[in-house]
């Protein structure tokens, strides 16, 4: 498993990395943790002529709280998120999601920015950052811009990050005391990617749901917001009938794909099961 030949670049700043992207354009590929890109290169499914490694760029990794949000550097590893006391305190579901990615080796190398930019349709993070209404900060030749999560995932393995841009930060609003969150997944038996994964963030005020935010990954070609589920929960008390009725809406708007792990019928069913489980788990918190 040897990749095709490529040139390897180690920019020291985001600016240098952007210049390399500008120079080599489609021939360049950004390297973060490498746990999706490098296997693809070893299979020779990806053959970038230039690999731009972001690991030497200072300041891209790290977690801090700023203005009511957790600011997570794009190069922060899954392990760093999973084990961060700050994340565990302010946004525990994000740590719980990170802990369910791949295996320890993947989590020690893989990064949140790499995962989100790669936009694997079965990745775990996308469901949770949709549920948490995160924002993505990207830098490009024209400076910084912020992309709301609902505008981020465009199609299969495609995001709103431009070819000349780099995702540098993920900003996740801190969960309030009256917010319950959960991420529940059905893992692929080999890869441990999500066959389906559902994240729920529910704000309960006066015994009723005042805000519902549900993200879905795995079943379709990209992660999506489950608007039908959200609408079915809003303003209701979280009783069994409400949860069941809301969960039934989970497949709405998901372009469910059949593969060896399941037919459209089965995955559609799983979406309902895991929506229910995620809502139930979020309701308990």
């Amino acid at each position: 498993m040897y990749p095709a030949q490529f040139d390897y670049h180690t920019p020291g700043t985001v600016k240098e990395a952007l210049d390399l992207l500008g120079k080599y354009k489609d021939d360049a590929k950004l390297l973060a943790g490498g746990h999706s890109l490098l296997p693809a290169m070893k299979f020779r499914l990806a053959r970038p002529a230039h690999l731009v490694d972001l690991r030497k760029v200072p300041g891209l990794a790290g977690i801090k709280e700023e203005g009511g949000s957790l600011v997570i550097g794009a190069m922060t590893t899954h392990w760093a998120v999973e084990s961060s006391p700050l994340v565990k305190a302010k946004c525990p579901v994000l740590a719980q999601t990170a802990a369910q990615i791949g295996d320890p080796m993947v989590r020690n190398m893989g990064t949140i920015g790499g995962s989100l930019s790669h936009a694997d349709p079965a990745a775990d993070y996308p469901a949770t950052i949709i549920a948490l209404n995160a924002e993505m900060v990207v830098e490009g030749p024209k400076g910084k811009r912020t992309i709301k999560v609902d505008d981020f995932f465009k199609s299969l393995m495609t995001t709103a990050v431009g070819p000349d841009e780099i995702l540098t930060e993920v900003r996740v609003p801190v969960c309030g005391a009256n917010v319950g969150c959960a991420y529940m997944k059905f893992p692929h038996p080999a890869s441990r990617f999500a066959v389906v994964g559902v994240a729920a963030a529910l704000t309960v005020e006066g015994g009723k749901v005042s805000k519902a935010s549900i993200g879905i990954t795995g079943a379709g070609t990209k992660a999506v917001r489950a608007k039908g589920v959200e609408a079915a929960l809003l303003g209701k008390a979280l009783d069994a009938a409400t949860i069941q009725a809301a969960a039934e809406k989970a497949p709405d708007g998901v372009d469910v794909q059949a593969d060896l792990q399941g037919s459209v019928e089965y995955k559609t069913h799983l979406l309902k099961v895991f929506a229910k489980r995620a809502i139930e788990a979020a309701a308990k918190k």
Partner: protein
Amino acid sequence: MATARLMGSSIKRREDPRFITGKGNYTDDLKLPGMTYAAFVRSEHANARIRGIDTARARAHPGVVAIFTGKDMTGVNSLPCGWLLPELKVPQHPPLATEAARCVGDPVAIVIAESQTAALDAADLVKVDWDVLPSVTSTARAATPGAPQIHEVAPNNIAFKFQIGDAAETDAAFTKADVVVKKRIVNQRLVANAMEPRACVARYEDATGDLTLWVTSQNPHVHRLLMTAFVLGIPEHKVRVIAPDVGGGFGSKIFLYNEETVCSWATRQIKRPIRWTSDRREAFQTDAQGRDHVTDAEVALSKDGTMLGLRVKTTANLGAYLSTFAPAVPTFLYATLLNGVYAFGAIHAEVTGVFTNTTPVDAYRGAGRPEAAYLLERMVDACAAALKMDPAELRKKNFIPKFDNGYQTKVALMYDSGNYGPCFDTLLQMLDYKKFRADQAAARAQGRLLGVGFSTYIEACSIAPSKVVGALGAQAGLWESGKVRVHPTGKVTVFTGSHSHGQGHETTFAQLAADQLGIPMDDVDIVHGDTGIVPFGMGTYGSRSASVGGTAILMSINKIKEKGKRIAAHLLEASPGDMDYANGQFFVKGSPEKAVPFGTVALVAYVPHNFPEGVEPGLEETSFYDPSNFCFPFGAHACVVEVDPDTGHVKILRYLAVDDVGNVINPMIVDGMVHGGIAQGVGQALWEGAVYDDTSGQLITGSMMDYALPKADGLPMYETARTVTPTPVNPLGIKGAGETGTIASTPAVVNAVVDALSGLGVDHFEAMPLTPERVWKAVQAATSGK
């Protein structure tokens, strides 16, 4: 001296420190001056004619040393099939495909370069002009009218038709049956996935004409014999095959493959060493795969549950070519095991071997015996369900009663010894079966689906004797060699013709030899895996190393002792017939105080100044052991599962195994084999399966991301025990332990899932693995009355 404790003692494996500290010596670790590196150009199509191969651009790539296609390999023969059934259709299997490729991954050219990357880059530049033909991968479809024809020599893609048992007697049994239970049972295809991928280094020295091949082999002598005598036509004595540390085989490294054959040929052309190491994708595509049966089975029963007859019709998928021992697996290693541990009144089995455009299929851990055990154990449970009998009771009712020296089955084999009831009773006690049924009923009342599955299996090890297997089509003898060299200082080197690639020979054989000689284990080393050093041996397969290889060593040790007695008798001025040997001392019977230590005898043997007349100097003996029969281990396993009805996910709560493998040299190593075997068998039941697209012929599950191997978090802590029924076949009483777990566990798991769902009306799964979707759909179909 603590000799009596060595046999049967859980001594830690000597080989492990080097393996776990990265100091093993694997084929890919070898560095030779002038080394070149090979990459193979492979077919991306399942069935395609080769119109032409353009190597011009590849030849121009920097670092390329040579490129060869099949047409360059003149005078090279087809890869041989080592087990010829009557009327077997044997298609040509050239080391590099010349006319057509018959499966994805079929090699058509070798690119040799100064570096591995240069070889791979240049291989990408070789352009093959393909005429793509329709293909067939489905076992059930292969021999049907209209299926694409793969080999001219095999009309309708049929390689052989085989039958065993008594058809008339079986028909009569079915005529008088009160109940007939019939099921279709599909045993899916598996990928062996040894941790170390296949690899070879071939070095030709033109100054001497010697060829050395380092290769990931379970049987280096067999590799050498097949390659020299049948394919390359070069003298066997000028070829040395070395199988150094080998990281697992599970059968897949028994066979002679294209790659080492081509490298051995090519090194003679370029006169430089060549290394090839498979990557994991090549391993998925080209390592011989396992199982792949579609079977219709029927059992005839009387009302009281007596098993009157068994009728089996199996189609076995052999893949695109006949791998080395492929025809033996679904015939003499499968159909002959269909008697199981049950006293069937009659049995008849038909097996049709078919070619498809898939990777060749051959022996994979268990090899035929798991297929037989799965079929029988699934059918027994289906029979119990049909009769509304308890599956444990039905088994007990039909067990062959205890026998010590021979039971003639209905399918040719003569079992050695067996006592199946106590083994199963031990299992039921460990399980607390009655309590489980109560727990199961209570759980059901709460909507939880618990189930238990049993598997009471038989296994056949140390395939033998040679004259019998020869009559059945084997092109090889199935004996083993063992040579014991006592050095002048009394230290001992043992050479075994069997090979260790995970089994722990370096520990167990040292235990055996030290125990027998009454000397410290540290004084004994085990050498294997080198045709230049070790006498011709048949290698490791079919759980035979301890029983056959161990007996050959024992025979040599006995010869050493006899010679030592003559030397010691001379030193003590006693008669050799009066001598005895124990605890490392030769002594006159009844006078242990008059003793000569083993080390003294060894020294005298090499410095024979005071030596008996007519005795040769030296102390070294070689033996070849050809067993008189197979050995038949048996056992009873149980699995307890819980099924999530919402998702179809199966969780294993308990796994219990009571095995009888005869006498045991090292219980810890046997436990390890049982544990690993269970994991592999559970893998087949729940996760593993090679899936081909029947239209394109592509292997869809071609990577670790798609093909689900067992993981620790899907397996419980095993509860194991053993009963001991020594075999009368060999003097060690050892039956064999390497495959029992794989054979037993698959049906135990599937039976447990069926049992969990039995309350909903599910009584069978036609196909494995029991993926969550399959289980969920079965629940849906049963509950919706479909």
